[in-house]
């Protein structure tokens, strides 16, 4: 975490992002800038568009309007005669290398061991020599506390362990940005902590992170900014202290009382 994130360069710049699924407009003009080293937690009720938004950041979803840049590169599209047209698969893939993504349901490759999951993309996408990829892969497994599980298949790991391998797999590509899509929502309560600990460590090391989560404790402790989404728009964007104690929007207050009221 940087003390003065405003001085850092922007990693993500989203401008006027709109997304429709058929007639249903899920994103209604999202503007967001995330600077290097910032941790931004996005909260909101289900259906508010928060998951769709972070899936747009690595172009798992197409957008109909607006633009998203990561590290100065326009994501998913290129400009032709002032219009945005979808970019080639190869270019989109190259952009995605810069963006790590962690999914709610882990999505580990079940036919590969934990270590093989981690080294797959570095070897075949980044073309890193196998020996080096193995070294880095083992170091990453150790970093998420699973050094002894390198030859274990995902089905033999607990949910929390699978999610930690998934984080290591994303980190192996040396991304400039990490996206977390409800990374603890599918976990048993006793496993949430081990995943959050890995994420906190990552935040301390200065990784730029956008996290969609219901973990208010994590948001309060780690986030630089907490964002509230409602109806496909950002309605609140504030440092955690202000977000949790003095939210500007009444919907935020209502949401917080629902979510936190249950817990405290």
């Amino acid at each position, binding site marked *: 975490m940087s003390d003065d994130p405003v001085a850092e360069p922007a990693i993500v710049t989203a401008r006027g992002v709109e997304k429709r699924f058929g007639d249903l407009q899920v994103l209604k003009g999202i503007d967001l800038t995330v600077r290097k080293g910032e941790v931004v937690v996005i909260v909101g009720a289900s259906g508010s568009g928060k998951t769709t938004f972070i899936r747009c950041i*690595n172009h798992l979803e197409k957008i109909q309007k607006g633009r998203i840049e990561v590290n100065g590169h326009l994501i998913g599209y290129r400009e032709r005669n002032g219009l945005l047209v979808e970019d080639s698969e*190869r270019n989109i*893939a190259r952009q*995605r290398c810069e963006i790590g993504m962690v999914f709610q349901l882990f999505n*580990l490759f*079940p036919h590969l061991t934990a270590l093989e999951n981690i080294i797959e993309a570095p070897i*075949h996408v980044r073309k890193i020599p196998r020996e080096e990829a193995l070294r880095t892969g083992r170091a990453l497994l150790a970093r998420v506390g699973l050094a002894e599980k390198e030859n274990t298949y995902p089905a033999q790991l607990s949910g929390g362990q699978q999610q930690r391998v998934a984080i290591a797999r994303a980190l192996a590509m040396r991304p400039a940005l990490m996206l977390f899509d409800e990374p603890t929502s599918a976990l048993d309560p006793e496993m949430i902590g081990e995943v959050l600990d890995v994420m906190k460590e990552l935040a301390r090391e200065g990784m730029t992170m956008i996290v969609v989560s219901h973990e208010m404790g994590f948001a309060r402790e780690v986030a630089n900014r907490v964002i509230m989404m409602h109806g496909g728009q950002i309605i609140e964007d504030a440092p955690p202290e202000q977000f949790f104690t003095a939210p500007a929007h009444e919907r935020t207050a209502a949401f917080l009382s629902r979510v936190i009221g249950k817990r405290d």
Partner: protein
Amino acid sequence: MNFEWGVFWEYLFWPSSVYLHGLWLTLSISVVAQGFGTVLGLFIALARISKHRLLQVPARIFVWGFRGTPLLVQIVFIYTGLAAANIFRFEDINLGFATLPGNLQAGLLALTLNEAAYMAEIIRAGINSVNLGQTEASKSLGMTYGLYMRRIILPQAARVVVPPLGNEFNSMLKNTTLLSVIGVPELLLATQMVTSVTFRVFELYMVVACYYLTLTTLWGFVQQRLESRFGDPAAAASRKLASKGYRRLFGFGQIGEPR
């Protein structure tokens, strides 16, 4: 009953060269047609699930046509029909070390195309059985279509594809008999040729049935090997011993057995 055990045993254990040649043809035709049919089926399956209509529609029509008409009709149509209409005549090809007769080429083509239609559906089902999250995870790691299909999706689809693939080859071994109608001297036509000389129809058809049974039985063992090779790696790792071959053969002791 007129059954000469002597003839039966003699042809079973000391088959004539006509028989052995027929056996060799049956085996090689099956392997080649299954191999090409599987590869072609893979591409048809990929076309079928593609988003481009130009690929999707021809693939649909191909599968519809070849699954919807009898294999025997396809064989006769490709060899005799095309020639009779002066569209295409299969000529013998000299490969240097051997000659590939026209009827064998036509037979191989028909079996391959027919098999491709069935394999396309099997492979398509296999690919669809792989969770969409696998594709998304692959893409998010910067993989392109060819790479994630080859390294991530197809290896997982194989688990679903291999058991029916085994059954397909079992059928293929038996479907080669249909090539007898266009004069390919595989095992059945070889038998017919021998019976027309010896008149020992009952004994010799018993022998040929034993041959097919032996082929499909041996294949059953290979199939079991394949299934454990392409099966669930986690389950294979935790399983102490592979289940015995005879169980798969006779179809018991597989389901519901504690691992």
